[in-house]
């Protein structure tokens, strides 16, 4: 593969031939990049806090709210089992939401910046 040339000493990877340090700084400060960063962070950061809080709530309820968790809902299905399955459901849901968000909001913006940089603009 042509992209696998030996890295320059002391660097994590080859520097992109067409992109200098100044170009990276100017791209980083461009409004397009700010928009991409915002689209990623404003989605990923709050959602991460939310799902970790939701998981910890579940763990805390399991540890300290045995009575509530044992409440039967129907048949032998109790609150504990329903909440456990809800953790599965929210995990699948968040994964799906992120995939949708990334495809619609992140990929086109990232692709545009990448194309522009690799064209040496």
């Amino acid at each position: 593969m042509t992209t696998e040339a030996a890295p320059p000493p002391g660097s994590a990877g080859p520097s992109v031939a067409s992109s200098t340090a100044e170009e990276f700084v100017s791209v980083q400060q461009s409004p397009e990049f700010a928009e991409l960063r915002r689209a990623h962070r404003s989605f990923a950061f709050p959602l991460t806090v939310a799902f970790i809080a939701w998981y910890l709530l579940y763990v805390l309820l399991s540890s300290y709210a045995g009575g509530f968790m044992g409440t039967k809902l129907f048949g032998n299905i109790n609150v504990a089992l329903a909440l456990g399955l809800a953790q599965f459901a929210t995990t699948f849901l968040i994964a799906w939401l992120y995939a949708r968000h990334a495809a619609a909001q992140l990929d086109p913006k990232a692709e545009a910046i990448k194309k522009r940089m690799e064209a040496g603009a």
Partner: protein
Amino acid sequence: MSAPLTPLQFTTAAGATEHRPLIITLFGLFVVATLIITVWAGRQTKGAADFYAGGRQFTGFQNGLAISGDYMSAASFLGIAGAIALFGYDGFLYSIGFLVAWLVALLLVAEPLRNSGRYTMGDVLAYRMRQRPVRTAAGTSTIVVSIFYLLAQMAGAGVLVSLLLGITSDGGKIAIVALVGLLMILYVTIGGMKGTTWVQMVKAVLLIAGALLITFLVLVKFNFNVSDLLGKAAENSGQGAKFLEPGLKYGKDPTTKLDFISLGLALVLGTAGLPHILIRFYTVPTAQAARKSVLWAIGIIGGFYLMTIALGFGAAALLNRDEIIKSNKAGNTAAPLLAQAVGGGADSTGGAILLAVISAVAFATILAVVAGLTLASSSSFAHDIYVNVIRRGQATEKEEVRAARWSTVVIGAVAIGLGALARDLNVAGLVALAFAVAASANLPTILYSLFWKRFTTQGALWSIYGGLVSSVVLVLFSPVVSGKPTSMFKDADFYWFPLENPGLISIPLGFLLGWLGTVLSKEEADPQKFAELEVRSLTGTGAH
């Protein structure tokens, strides 16, 4: 995974000894098939990108399957099913952290890592920093996490095989550890990442197929009425409704409750810092493919853990509780015993075949996981320590791949030696320690590196070494190592830290030290390097 694997002989009811030829044949088939794949993959492994990253040619689906194969250890298959069979709901509770954790990888880590790194976790951690100190720290942490994890798997393999085949002699157990070690060395040195990936894919398919089959056979017995299954399990357990509620395992006293919270935190934050998982993201061509890998992995792993509910409660409902405990105190043989029961019972051909199939799947599971761990540690030793620290980035690609192969042999030999020495120690707690180090040392450093402009070399060193040392020291002085009948060294007693999992202390400490090291730093962060890393990680410009 915290479930101790205890070497007890299989009871006659399980009939392991008489089915030994069938189990060995199936296992032999898996070994032959995977070795053929390995040799085939080895022929295509030429450069460093082939050895470390399988040529970056895998699709998102293939990598998702391989990630599942890399992640789902025998402990999560036999251990969780067994924990549910004996402790009911708490066994299930344990599995949830392992799944939710993948969202951290999906939202924050997988894509930026794929875009900005090359072969190892150290590539990303050292990107903005002074290379040699940060590479050394990242390499140390990678090797420590992987070796702890590996050791637990190796010792578990010895115990598991002795359980399933009825081998209890000391020499037999050492031979099994050596065989597992030898196979993993062959997979990795010959096949590199490509061979390892295919072994993991094959294992994932076998594991899912085996679990699906047994789940189906269990559900048929209850006419697909899950409520009836749970009712029968609760009744049969002798615990009644309590069996379906949290508390039987982790709810004993305030310490076990706190310990579970600590474990839960380490599980959910540790996964995205496990080096053997992180290097899998380099095997696909783009960040989008890395994202797809995680999406597939979430689907496969989630589906698998849902099936363990049927397996665990099925075992509780259909098997005699005393039989499960007699076979293995921690319930690790519940799943194979269940397979035998739903296949028609101990004396039937169907029962014999299913027992053998599930046992062989369990062996395959161990092999795929240990191969991934060996690759992660030898990659990091060769790429981070040897090439970038010792040779200061001046090694040729040929020298680098040769170093990686040799480090595989050395690390494999060390793992065999330690695994043989630890064969009678309860080292299952080491997996929890591996997750704790990953969450306390690796994750904070990855997140700060990617998202915090001011983060400096000193911050990175403080968070890596602080998280690493605090986790290891706390475990050293915890009941995992000494002071309890279930401890690694049960005759010694030098523990003062009450929790088995250090995460509750070490994870916040890792994050705190990363911040503190940065604000107290004399040198400022390099804004140009951060611009380069940030633009590359989000756009994929110049990705390998």
